[in-house]
């Protein structure tokens, strides 16, 4: 399955997902109001240090900050322009720290555990007719079909290039959507044949139709 999860074992992996989410929320509450640069530097270093405690494969993941760098550069630039150098430094470091901490939870928690931990959050959705079972099924379907559609896209791309098509890859999106619609009809039929979204068992305990 496509996931950022780091298959590995560390002290953070062993903590329950719900607890990690609460810790993350608490850490955000502490970090967000801080406006002193010195403290922000301390927080950033502490967050980076947490990656080091995960071992070799842990600290290598510090490079996941990289896609954020252009954004940070632009933000700093605009702060410089506004003459708020100090403030800019604080907010850039705050972003890095928050990113590192949130990402740490993702790295050390399985998607299924995260889903489980979020169940209390999803419960109110039942009031508007979205059952946890339907939601679990939708997540499973999406995770399964994303790679399938990437394959569809790749074969469309090959066919397009075989016909001599070049750069304009957006032209492949219409056929991709058409194929996805056809695929969804087949999948829906298959699902109905197996008892429908409320009948198919994600957990075998429930036998209600």
């Amino acid at each position, binding site marked *: 399955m496509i996931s950022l999860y780091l298959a590995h074992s560390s002290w953070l992996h062993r903590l329950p997902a719900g607890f990690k989410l609460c810790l993350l929320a608490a850490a955000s509450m502490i970090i967000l109001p801080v406006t002193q640069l010195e403290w922000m530097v301390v927080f950033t270093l502490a967050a980076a240090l947490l990656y080091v405690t995960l071992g070799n494969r842990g600290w290598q993941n510090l490079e996941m900050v990289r896609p954020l760098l252009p954004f940070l550069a632009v933000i700093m630039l605009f702060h410089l322009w506004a003459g708020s150098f100090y403030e800019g430094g604080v907010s850039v470091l705050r972003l890095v720290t928050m990113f590192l901490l949130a990402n740490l939870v*993702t790295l050390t928690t399985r998607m299924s555990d995260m889903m489980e931990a979020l169940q209390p959050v999803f419960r109110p959705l039942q009031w508007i007719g979205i059952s946890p079972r339907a939601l679990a099924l939708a997540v499973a379907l999406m995770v399964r079909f994303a790679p399938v559609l990437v394959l569809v896209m790749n074969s469309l791309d090959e066919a397009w290039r075989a016909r001599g098509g070049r750069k304009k890859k957006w032209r492949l999106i219409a056929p991709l959507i058409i194929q996805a619609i056809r695929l969804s009809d087949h999948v829906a039929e298959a699902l109905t044949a197996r008892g429908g979204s409320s009948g198919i068992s994600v957990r075998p305990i429930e036998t209600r139709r």
Partner: protein
Amino acid sequence: MNKDRTLVQIALYAAVIAALGLLPKFNIPVAGGVPLTAQTLGLMLAGIMLGPVRGFLSVALFILVVALGAPLLAGGRGGLGVFAGPTVGFIVGFPFAALVTGLMMQQLQRVNLFAAALISSIVGGILVLYAFGIPGMVVMTSLDFAGAAKAILVFIPGDLIKALIAALIAQSVLRAMPGIIPSRQAIV
């Protein structure tokens, strides 16, 4: 429309948005060299192809799976980290962009499809999206409103091109499968 079909459609369309983000270097030519991803194109199309409610749910599902830890945002980003980044406002705004695009399509039923899709995409996929994204940037970066707006302005031309492409795609999908677009079911 039965329940299974709706559920599968929502899930598979979310997978389409994911596939658009997973494509390595989905280049859309634009001036200024600002990198563009096909993902916001996916939002516009969600609203057009699925209508407001299913479009909203589909994009919300996509965001949920990203939050669970799937690296499905363009550039392989994902996990809780993206909700702590400067672009969090945009990500939160994604489902609402699809919702408004779908609502606009309903309002513009009498206008021809290309124009309706173009206007809907601009309103939903640009105006609404930026209405979420810019305040998000203000909160996360402590830039003032004008500064954040200026920093993000470079993306506008690219987004206009995406709205145009969304309209073209809607047109060719409808041509291939008449009746597939919710707000256009009467027209053959």
